[in-house]
């Protein structure tokens, strides 16, 4: 017998553990972290269970299926239009009521759901115990308790999926009924909808359309415009919505949301037993102090500064150690190879390929790996939303709100995910504004240059000054962009997840998968860049380029003429600038001013190609190119300015 294929989707609120479950089930590495809104793109994977081939999709976390954000519309259309065989609704046991609000909406969509009651361990810690049987009875669907981070319950979850899919276990989903005033009107609209909009009813349940129309859902209303009878139905629904609003004195979506929450609250109360009254826990104390209106800021500064200090100390230590290891490798390889290969080939291999690999290992990796570890710790602890809370006011000054601080912090790791992470912002305009400032944040690759050049040869204080300057720049440019791009800033509404102890395993997996990604993507480019430079040098072309760029590089920026080459190649990857520079001239030969100017220019001048591509995908090519051009112009301007100012200061 051929077992059929199954398509299942993971849906639920943000930060409930969907990605952890997805990773457990598929063995893949979706980003996991402790802040709401990580999964912005749906991820897909396949797994095999009891002979079934199961295709599983991780949907972005959302709180509702209204038409508030793109993610909400995409998710509900996925559920309604693509009709997956089963939806696993992941529910956070420690916040049952809010999660059930979403469950009720899935039930309105008449989706085939089973409940994954996740984080039961965390709920237990809060003194909350949930009666699984009772919950299953109340909702009419299976409920499987799980602890995703330990993998407990995953087998039962899959068994339940298969049992439901094979018809062995039947779903009798709760048909939620709301208060009389609402119900009367929903049913009246439903009748009209099923009579007049036959075609739409093959995709969406008539009752769901009716509820959405009563809620004045703009997306559904838009769909009706294409129907002959659409206007009639819309007008009727509008009339009833106004009636409802008269009775309750609230906008109709608020009336209906209240009803849903009322039902969610009733179910949650019935199935929850509070065992121990929650006491003030360590997490709560930590929360209070890290979001404190005064203390919070020195703590934030301390966290960021010690982050760089740690990376600097760890990086220098590793870098020196590795350099020592590789010191004699090149001489040895050269002597071996020259015995049987022509000089030019030996040079290409030795100064190209080998120098690239050694540069990547001794210059880039030592700073990047500690960085990834610290970033993973920040992400998993739940500190990022606290930082967002503290920075809300300041972010408003540049037309954004606190949440934008999260992609900004991620930007210190890599601009690409940071750019995509800007999707946690609610409007198109805010996403672009956030994207514009996020690419100016020095990513780990730029940190390699800043710490590996300025930090190492001048001192940590100079490197930190560069970071501080960058923040000021981000603020000023953000402010200008905010003034140029008209629009009303949106306010902050963000869930504050609890603090969690980061799991060693998760930190390790995340650091490893990012490092692996770095090696796979960056090393070929670093090697190719090194070979290309060696080829340029051997062919004699180098001097032409150096000559042509010299007015700018030497004249305006006051850098040694050879630095033009690394700066050009740096478009590929930012750490390449330093690696190539070290291959061309001894780093110690640069003056302090030259080091600062070089790092400053590298920090700002253009997002690398991967980032430009990511920006283009998020905001379109025109905007992406505009960002690139602005950044190049700015970098050259500031670089020249810094050269002159610093020379003046040093002279006196």
């Amino acid at each position, binding site marked *: 017998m051929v077992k059929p294929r199954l398509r299942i989707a993971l849906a639920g609120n943000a930060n409930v553990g969907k990605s952890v479950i997805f990773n457990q089930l598929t063995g893949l590495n979706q980003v996991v972290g402790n802040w709401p809104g990580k999964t912005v793109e749906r991820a897909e994977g396949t797994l095999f269970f009891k002979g079934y081939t199961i295709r599983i999709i991780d949907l972005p976390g959302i709180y509702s299926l209204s038409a508030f954000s793109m993610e909400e519309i995409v998710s509900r259309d996925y559920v309604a239009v693509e009709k997956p065989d089963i939806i696993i609704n992941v529910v956070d046991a420690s916040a049952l*009521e809010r999660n059930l609000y979403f469950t009720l909406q899935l039930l309105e969509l008449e989706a085939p759901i089973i409940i994954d009651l996740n984080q039961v361990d965390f709920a237990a810690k809060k003194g909350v115990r949930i009666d699984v049987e009772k919950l299953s009875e109340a909702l009419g669907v299976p409920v499987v308790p799980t602890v995703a981070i330990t993998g407990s319950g995953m087998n039962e979850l899959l068994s339940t999926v298969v049992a439901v899919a094979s018809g062995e276990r039947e779903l009798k989903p709760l048909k939620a009924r709301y208060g009389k005033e609402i119900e009367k009107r929903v049913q009246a609209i439903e009748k009209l909808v099923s009579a007049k909009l036959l075609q739409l009813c093959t995709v969406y349940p008539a009752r769901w359309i009716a509820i959405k129309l009563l809620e004045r859902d703009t997306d559904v209303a838009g769909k009706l415009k294409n129907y002959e009878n659409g206007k009639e139905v819309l007008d009727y629904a509008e009339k009833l919505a106004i009636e409802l609003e008269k009775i309750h004195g609230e906008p109709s979506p608020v009336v209906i949301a*209240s009803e849903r929450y009322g039902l969610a609250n009733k179910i949650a109360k019935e199935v929850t037993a509070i065992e121990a009254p929650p006491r003030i826990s360590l997490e709560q104390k930590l*929360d209070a102090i890290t979001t404190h209106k005064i203390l919070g800021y020195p703590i934030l500064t301390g966290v960021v500064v010690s982050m760089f200090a740690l990376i600097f100390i760890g990086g220098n230590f590793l870098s020196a150690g590795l350099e020592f290891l590789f010191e004699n490798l090149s001489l040895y390889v050269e002597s071996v190879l020259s015995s049987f290969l022509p000089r030019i080939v030996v040079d290409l291999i030795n100064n190209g390929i080998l120098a690239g690999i050694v540069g990547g290992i001794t210059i880039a990796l030592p700073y990047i790996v500690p960085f990834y570890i610290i970033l993973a710790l920040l992400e998993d602890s739940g500190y990022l939303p606290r930082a967002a809370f503290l920075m809300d006011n300041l972010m408003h000054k540049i037309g954004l709100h*606190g949440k934008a601080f999260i992609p900004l912090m991620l930007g210190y790791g890599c601009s690409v995910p940071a750019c995509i992470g800007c999707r946690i912002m609610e409007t198109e305009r805010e996403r672009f504004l956030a994207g514009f400032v996020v690419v100016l944040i020095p990513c780990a690759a730029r940190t390699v240059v800043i710490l590996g050049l300025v930090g190492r040869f001048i001192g940590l204080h100079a490197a930190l000054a560069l970071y501080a300057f960058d923040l000021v720049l981000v603020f000023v440019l953000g402010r200008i962009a905010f003034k140029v791009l008209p629009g009303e800033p949106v306010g902050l*509404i963000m869930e504050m997840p*609890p603090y969690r102890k980061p799991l060693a395993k998760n930190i390790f997996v995340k650091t490893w998968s990012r490092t692996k990604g770095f090696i796979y993507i960056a090393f070929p480019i670093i090697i190719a860049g090194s070979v290309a430079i060696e080829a340029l040098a051997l062919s004699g072309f180098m001097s032409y380029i150096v000559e042509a760029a010299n007015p700018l590089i030497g004249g305006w920026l006051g850098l040694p003429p050879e630095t033009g080459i690394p700066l050009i190649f740096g478009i590929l990857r930012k750490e390449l600038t330093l690696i190539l520079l070290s291959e061309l001239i001894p780093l110690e030969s640069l003056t302090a001013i030259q080091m600062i100017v070089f790092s400053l220019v590298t920090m700002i001048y253009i997002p690398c190609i991967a980032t430009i591509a990511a920006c283009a995908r998020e905001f379109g090519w025109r905007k992406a190119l505009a960002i690139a051009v602005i950044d190049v112009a700015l970098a050259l301007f500031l670089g020249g300015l810094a050269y002159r100012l610093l020379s003046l200061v040093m002279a006196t």
Partner: protein
Amino acid sequence: MQGGSREPSKRRNPRGIEGVISLTSLCEGERGVVAYAVGGFGLVRRLADMGLTPGVEVKLLRKGSFHGPVQIEVRGVGLALGYGVASKVFVRPLKAKPDG
């Protein structure tokens, strides 16, 4: 200006219901029951989706400095609201009771 004094009080409680104040006027640690929210359709609906519907009990955990955001607890979850957002939510303060 004559009407000057009326404006702020009206802003404090646009629907003029007795005993209702804005969420930002609660003290840290104080509880209240949501009366209503004002503002654009999208905002009011979003707040309702996050659980801030009329009749629900909220606790103000803390406020940020200089008209900063507020952190509240509603329906068992922590929520951060920008100052502008929070000042559009109106609550009826509850008599202090032993803190849980």
